[in-house]
């Protein structure tokens, strides 16, 4: 097996091809539907380049209690992989270590279709592959801790999770970055074979000068289940494209997100629920809050193929606007080529309910504390469904603290 840190020749050549594609590709203008309402036109990709291989950093990973394995990635390179017995027969490796790495890579996401995809493919190197063999259950979550802090740096984390027939695994990825202006272009591929279960949660806690352009893709086999979830808190412009493809009969998948934007942040979500097989079920719940001058965009599509009778598809996006200057946009969409389906979509943008706040205040709860309780309650519904129990309290309190800081800032300004 080749060395984990050395790129396989096929990967080097794939990167070169992608670099050529990138050079020939046209930059998005913001006029395309998938880039509407975004800041993409303001971003000059040429401003960012891959940090030197030795650009390490001393920032410690945040441990996940009881993790079966911990992968630490610093400025785009693997810093360490710590495996425990809890992994059992599951393996953690890089794609270069696999003889069939070329067929593993992008088998879920597919070929790159735009500038961002080519950008990622041209620079992704230390690509993580988590493999769980047939019928094996990894009970403890596997943790990935990603951090970068080089000014002008471009990093392209790539995580592939493969659960073979009847296997199960949970992966928690935490992405952070320093204050330096930089760009992160992550790809996540989740592959649940028949009767398998894949749980994935990413905590996006990037610095406020980091641009993030993320692509998550999951394919779910017969009677299998996948959960792809995102807590999105950081980034200046942070975009997530999330695709759940239900390809096997009776498969199901959840797309979940809790997001909180403050200051000048823009959080941008594009979701796709692809129903390609009969009797498939997808549940989407995205709940977010924006305050300050922050903006959020949610655009979701449920697509039911003619080959997918008996589809159940649900899509719910709810947004709380916590300040005058904040802005939330929500566009649900359906595209159905099959009659035997049950689909629903709901989207709301609203403020904190005045009657609810008054009810709490009339019991002696101060205004800010009342708002904290209400916002916390709003997010509890989705955070409660996140598949990594060990971080739920942390994510919930992150939102409490962010709201308290925002309210304190508003008070100071008033």
């Amino acid at each position, binding site marked *: 097996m080749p060395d984990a840190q050395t790129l396989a020749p096929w990967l080097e050549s794939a990167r070169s091809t992608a670099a050529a594609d990138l050079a020939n590709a046209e930059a998005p203008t913001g006029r395309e539907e998938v880039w509407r309402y975004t800041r993409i036109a303001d971003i000059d990709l040429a401003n960012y380049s891959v940090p030197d291989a030795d650009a390490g950093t001393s920032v410690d990973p945040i441990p996940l209690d009881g993790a079966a394995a911990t992968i630490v990635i610093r400025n785009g390179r693997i810093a360490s992989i710590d495996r425990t017995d809890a992994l059992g027969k599951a393996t953690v490796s890089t794609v270069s270590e696999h003889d069939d790495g070329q067929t593993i890579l992008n088998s879920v996401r597919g070929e790159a279709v735009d500038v961002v995809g080519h950008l990622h493919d041209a620079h992704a190197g230390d690509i993580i592959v988590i493999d769980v063999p047939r019928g094996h259950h990894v009970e403890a979550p596997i943790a990935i801790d990603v951090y970068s802090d080089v000014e002008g740096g471009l990093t392209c984390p790539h995580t592939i999770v493969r659960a073979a027939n009847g296997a199960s695994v949970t992966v928690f990825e935490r992405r952070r970055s320093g204050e330096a202006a930089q760009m992160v272009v992550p790809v996540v591929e989740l592959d649940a074979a028949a009767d398998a279960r894949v749980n994935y949660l990413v905590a996006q806690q990037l610095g406020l000068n980091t641009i993030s352009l993320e692509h998550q893709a999951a394919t779910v086999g017969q009677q299998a289940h996948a959960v792809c979830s995102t807590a999105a808190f950081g980034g200046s412009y942070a975009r997530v494209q999330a695709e759940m493809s239900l390809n096997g009969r009776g498969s199901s998948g959840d797309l979940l997100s809790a997001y909180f934007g403050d200051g000048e942040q823009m959080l941008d979500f594009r979701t796709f629920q692809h129903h390609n097989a009969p009797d498939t079920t997808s549940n989407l719940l995205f*709940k977010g809050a924006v305050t300050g001058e922050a903006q959020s965009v949610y655009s979701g599509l449920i697509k039911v193929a003619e080959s997918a009778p008996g589809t159940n598809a649900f899509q719910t996006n*709810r*947004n*709380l606007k916590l300040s005058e200057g904040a802005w*939330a*946009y*929500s*566009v649900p969409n359906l595209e159905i080529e099959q009659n035997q389906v049950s689909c629903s979509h*709901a*989207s*709301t*943008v*609203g403020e904190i*309910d*005045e*009657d*609810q706040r*008054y*009810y*709490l*205040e*009339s*019991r*002696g*709860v*101060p*205004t800010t*504390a*009342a708002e904290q*309780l*209400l916002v*916390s*309650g*709003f*997010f*509890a*519904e989705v955070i409660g469904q996140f598949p990594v129990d060990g971080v739920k309290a942390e994510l919930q309190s992150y939102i409490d603290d962010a709201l308290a800081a925002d309210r304190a800032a508003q008070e100071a300004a008033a």
Partner: protein
Amino acid sequence: MSELVVTDLHATVGGKEILKGVSLTIRSGEVHAVMGPNGSGKSTLSHVITGKPGYTVTGGSVTLDGVELLELAAWERAKAGLFLAMQYPTEVPGVSLEAMLTASAVAAGRDADVIKASIAAESERIGFATDLITRPLNVDLSGGEKKRNETVQLGVLEPKFAILDEIDSGLDVDAMKAVTRRVEEATNADDKPLGVLAITHYKRLFEELEPDHVHVFAAGVIQKSGGRELADELEETGYAEWAHLVDHSAPTAFDNPFGDTTFADGLNLHEG
């Protein structure tokens, strides 16, 4: 001994005057009943005293032991010792009774660690199922359960004064007994007895809760005051004597008894 003094209180809703000079003094341990026809502004009185948004005070004062409540935020009035049992308690998804009362205790500088035990004790006292305590506030509760929930809160918060806004509405006989008996006990406490302003339409509230003073409220003012016998008299004659004073076109800012178009997560529907 505490004193809640309402003096010549005037208030408007949407530019229309609903309270036209209300004066009332309640002392610790006293039960004052405010009775009146629908649309008379009874609920407005309770909301103006407790500080609900949407009402404009145009004159008068409300003091609790000399402290002007009208200058305080709603939560500060509660901290000062005022409690409102709502006619239609608001559903608050995602927030539990314990979380709310703990936040209240913290703000008041009281011991928050005893809140859980205190809720359990108060619930037991009025026959409120303890599994309702951790559920989201008022969500999927029956009318009777909501009023018991309000009464548990009254017991835990130990206010100086409680305004009961039609606490008898939506209550079955058992719940009514349990709730009114608890309030009556609080008014008879040796230490800091509760003062009560009970807004109601019907006399049945007084089977367990003994009123010291009864006020007939119509057209934004107290029309007549007396003892318990006035409630008996009203039961006989009804409010016909004052019915002509009621302006049915008066806008109200009461809670909608049928609820808003609210989702489980508490967001009102505003299509984005």
